[in-house]
């Protein structure tokens, strides 16, 4: 057995274990961390398929940013496990339907050999083949417009999220840092020239 195959089985086993623990872990924070582990192993699997850009982008975007924010939210919420479990049986039929649908779709993908996917020519890539460069070439030439439109849609989503939560407080006391930096000492303190006030010695009253 090739070393790559052993690695594939290790990564897949860890992925499946982590994915199972995501739905079975009692503590939501543990569940999120197992999801991170699953992402990491999927990235490793993609790396084995020589899709290094996808693998590293997955780690950078999902593990490095999205899941951190997820973890933030989950850590701050006070989730009551018992209450979450109450709706289990009533939601089961819908959940089972969605689950079966996903299994069926995945089966179609995985049974590619049966549907004739094996007839596609296998790719023999040279050693200096750069997945990232090829992806960039296609993305910025053939699919430049869809790519830009997708990014604008994401930008709209960001602006909407900001606008939905933006509240102007009336008692806001925030200071403008550039005003603070622009302050000179003479704006704050005025030196006044004046004649010195000399305290005259009080004449002593004798005999007291």
């Amino acid at each position: 057995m090739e070393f790559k195959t052993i690695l594939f089985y290790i990564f897949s086993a860890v992925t499946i274990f982590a994915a199972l623990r995501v739905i079975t872990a009692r503590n939501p924070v543990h569940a999120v961390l197992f999801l991170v582990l699953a992402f990491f192993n999927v990235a490793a699997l993609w790396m084995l398929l020589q899709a290094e850009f996808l693998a590293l982008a997955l780690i950078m975007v999902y593990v490095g940013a999205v899941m951190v924010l997820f973890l933030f939210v989950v850590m701050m919420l006070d989730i009551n496990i018992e209450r979450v479990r109450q709706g289990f049986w009533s939601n089961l039929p819908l959940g089972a339907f969605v689950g079966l649908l996903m299994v069926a779709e995945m089966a179609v993908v995985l049974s590619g050999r049966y549907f004739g996917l094996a007839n596609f020519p296998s790719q023999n890539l040279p050693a200096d083949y750069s997945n990232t460069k090829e992806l960039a070439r296609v993305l910025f030439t053939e699919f430049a417009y869809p790519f830009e439109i997708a990014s604008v849609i994401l930008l709209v989503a960001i602006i909407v999220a900001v606008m939905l939560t933006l509240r102007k407080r009336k008692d806001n006391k925030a200071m403008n840092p550039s005003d603070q930096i622009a302050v000179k000492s003479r704006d704050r303190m005025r030196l006044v020239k004046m004649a010195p006030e000399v305290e005259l010695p009080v004449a002593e009253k004798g005999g007291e």
Partner: protein
Amino acid sequence: METTVLGFFEWLWGPLWAPLWTLVQPVWPLIWTLVKIVLILAPLLLSVAYLTFWERKIIGWMQVRIGPNRVGPWGLLQPIADGMKLFFKEVLFPSAADKKLFILGPIMAIAPALAAWAVIPFAPGWVLANVNAGVLYLLAISSVGVYGIIISGWASNSKYPFFAAMRASAQMISYEISMGLALITVLMVSNSLNLTEIVVAQSAGRFADMGIGALSWNWLPLLPMFGVYLISGIAEVNRAPFDVVEGESEIVAGHMVEYSGMSFAMFFLAEYANMILIAAMTSIFFLGGWLSPVSFLPDGFHWLAAKMASVLFFFLWIRATFPRYRYDHIMRLGWKVFVPLTLVWILVVGIWMMSPLTIWK
């Protein structure tokens, strides 16, 4: 180097070498990689130890003090003594802590700090993994480092570490963006994601032809990005003046309040290993890596070491000079100053590269 080592073993074992080699050969790539990992990590951990010493000395001199001078000649054994002390201290667990995650926290902090060194080229050919997407790998691995802080902050089950963990992760995610955007300009002018090729791309240019290579490195044409990268680097490793993560006046000592002994030492190691990593990355991306500043001196690892040492000195110097930033100012600097600046500069560099005035061909 590999053939030299093998030749040495062949000489050492004499006639016994041939049967031994048939046993060793299948696993030899693995052994050789492990040897290279040790060759990178051992000097790295030693420099981490002496960076702490150097920091205390330099800050001491800047504050007209002497600094550590008791242990060994000129205090040189101080980091060893500190290490021994931490090593023999008990690792305490808070009673309500999540034990497994409490142990995982420091591991998640130090692992990315060490793993990132796999793609750093020290000299031509001196690199553990000369991968095509080296820059992406560095960004991906350094973005994982934030987990060590979040996990330890949460698992401690204590208020101050949790506050610090939230501050730290917000800060690190914000400054990762400006660092990544600053690196995009470097990628544009070097036309590669491979770190070795990024260094080699800096060896060409008008000034390099005149013999002053130092003016051909990326720092001069991309000067604003060099500044953004350096400052974001300091914020990314949570060093002063951006060290609100462990602002002792506000939140005691950050996410490692509840840690003691070796588990605390691992956070410490991770912070300094990350500092050295940022120094190495700055030297490679902007200061020409192992290239010599002038053509009459030979290139080599010593130049990279000298550049890293200067960047590290800059970090220590800044720590001794500036008071701590307020938290909202840190966020403002990252999001309202650096991100727009880098976005505009990407456009400027793009237009510059396409115009007839381009210096990158």
